[in-house]
């Protein structure tokens, strides 16, 4: 017998609201319909009534996890309209913040995934580790969620003692290599719950234009840090982990390997942090009429901002945000087709969705 199960908007697995109508035949999911918009705040429209300082604070609030990425992308686009170029030290600090954010996002996701697998001890371990990443972020920025680090032409705060941050990163890396990575890559529980579940084939991933770790876990080697380097990424050495299987386990492996790559990038960036200013000092700037676009690789994949300005205006004429979850979420329909009903919360969580980002 065919029946429909509405899942959400209060979700069994995730904190944010969204709804999935699952069409089931027995325990097997035949099809699914996604409903978003529960977090729609009209942020793009609000941005048109904010000046160039206020708009940074506003867009930082698009997402509670990758808040720094949003201001980084916005500021990069606004720098394109003002002609300002951040000094080298600022570019490195931007990389450090972006990678710390990726670390805390991936570890948070690992914790939630562990909980959904029935691995609650691992959930606690991951959250303890994430807390250490948050401590590093707080030590640098003074904040734990909205870091207020980016500004047009650079960053707001310096890293005065990179060696102490480096020690924290090394301790984190050792702990991840000792506990999180081996458990996720070798444990039987993780394998049995994730292998062959929620498959997104390479062909479908390309057709849907999915991005980030979900694309890389479906064999699409796509990463803007490598393909279109921004900030100081062109000067840093790192690998882009790719897995071909396209299942939940592949997404788990890609993120686990990315945690190690982020630590590698952080070690390099902290060691090579160049001296000098952290923002363009005392330089007057003005917005030219036009549109500038910037893209960065957020923890969940490509974020793109298009910012349009009219010369002499205090406010942007238009700010458009294409978030990674907006590109990835339609793939859930294809991932849950043929899956067991009991696996659907884990499959949905495996894309590491951010519904606030999606709805804006």
């Amino acid at each position, binding site marked *: 017998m065919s029946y429909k199960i509405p899942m959400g908007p209060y979700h069994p697995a995730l904190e944010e609201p969204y709804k999935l109508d699952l069409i089931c035949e027995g325990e097997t999911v035949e099809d699914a319909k996604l*409903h978003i918009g529960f977090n729609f705040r009209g942020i793009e429209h609000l941005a048109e009534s904010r000046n160039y300082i206020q708009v940074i604070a506003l867009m930082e609030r698009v997402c509670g996890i990758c808040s720094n990425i949003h201001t980084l992308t916005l500021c990069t686009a606004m720098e394109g309209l003002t002609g300002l170029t951040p000094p080298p030290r600022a570019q490195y600090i931007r990389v450090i913040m972006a990678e710390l954010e990726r670390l805390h996002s991936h570890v948070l996701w690992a914790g939630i995934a562990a909980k959904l697998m029935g691995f609650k001890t691992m959930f606690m371990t991951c959250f303890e580790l994430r807390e250490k990443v948050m401590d590093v972020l707080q030590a640098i920025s003074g904040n734990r969620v909205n870091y207020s680090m980016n500004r047009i032409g650079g960053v707001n705060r310096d890293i005065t003692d990179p060696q102490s941050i480096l020690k924290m990163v090394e301790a984190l890396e050792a702990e991840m290599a000792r506990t999180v990575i081996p458990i996720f890559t070798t444990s039987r529980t993780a394998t049995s719950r994730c292998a062959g579940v929620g498959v997104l084939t390479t062909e479908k991933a390309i057709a849907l234009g999915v991005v980030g770790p979900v694309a890389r876990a479906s064999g699409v080697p796509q990463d803007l840090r490598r393909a279109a380097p921004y900030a100081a990424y062109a000067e840093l050495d790192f690998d882009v982990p790719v897995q071909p299987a396209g299942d939940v386990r592949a997404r788990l492996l890609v993120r686990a390997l990315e945690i190690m790559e982020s630590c590698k990038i952080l070690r390099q960036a902290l060691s090579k942090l160049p001296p000098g200013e952290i923002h363009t000092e005392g330089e007057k700037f003005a917005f030219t009429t036009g549109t500038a676009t910037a893209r960065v690789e957020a923890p969940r994949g490509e974020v793109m901002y298009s910012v349009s300005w009219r010369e002499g205006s205090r406010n942007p004429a238009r700010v458009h945000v294409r978030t990674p979850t907006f*590109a990835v979420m339609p793939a859930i329909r294809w991932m849950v087709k043929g899956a067991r009903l009991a696996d659907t919360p884990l499959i949905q969580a495996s894309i590491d969705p951010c519904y606030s980002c999606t709805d804006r």
Partner: protein
Amino acid sequence: MTSLDEIPQKHGSNEAWVEKGGVHWLNPGKMSVRQLAAAMNELHARFITITAYQLPKEEGFRMEYHWDLDGQLLGFSFVLAGKSIESIFDLCEAVDWIEREIHEGFAIEFTGREYEPLLLRQGDTPGVNLRDAVVASGALAANQEKK
């Protein structure tokens, strides 16, 4: 000649690519959005997004289509005199949600496709220009007065 240069030539245009604001722009000229989507498919370019701009007064809309080709960001701008443009959903599955979102937020009709129920504002009226609706409601003016 790169495969990018072949696109305008193939479609009878003399336009050249111009790099501006981080994007490689090509004036599509007489090329329709569907011809463009087919050309992007041939190149195996990845669709990123569409950005809709409401032009001042009654000048209509500008739609910017973006694709990624090996890390290069490609941009194509179409000015709409009216409120409709051909859908490319059947050529490019990735446009589904952004076409639906623009239809909901700007009341632009993507012809040749069917819409599922509203993506962002379920239960609301489809095809409403939210910007005009907000201005008409006076909410924005009230907010400015408070400031």
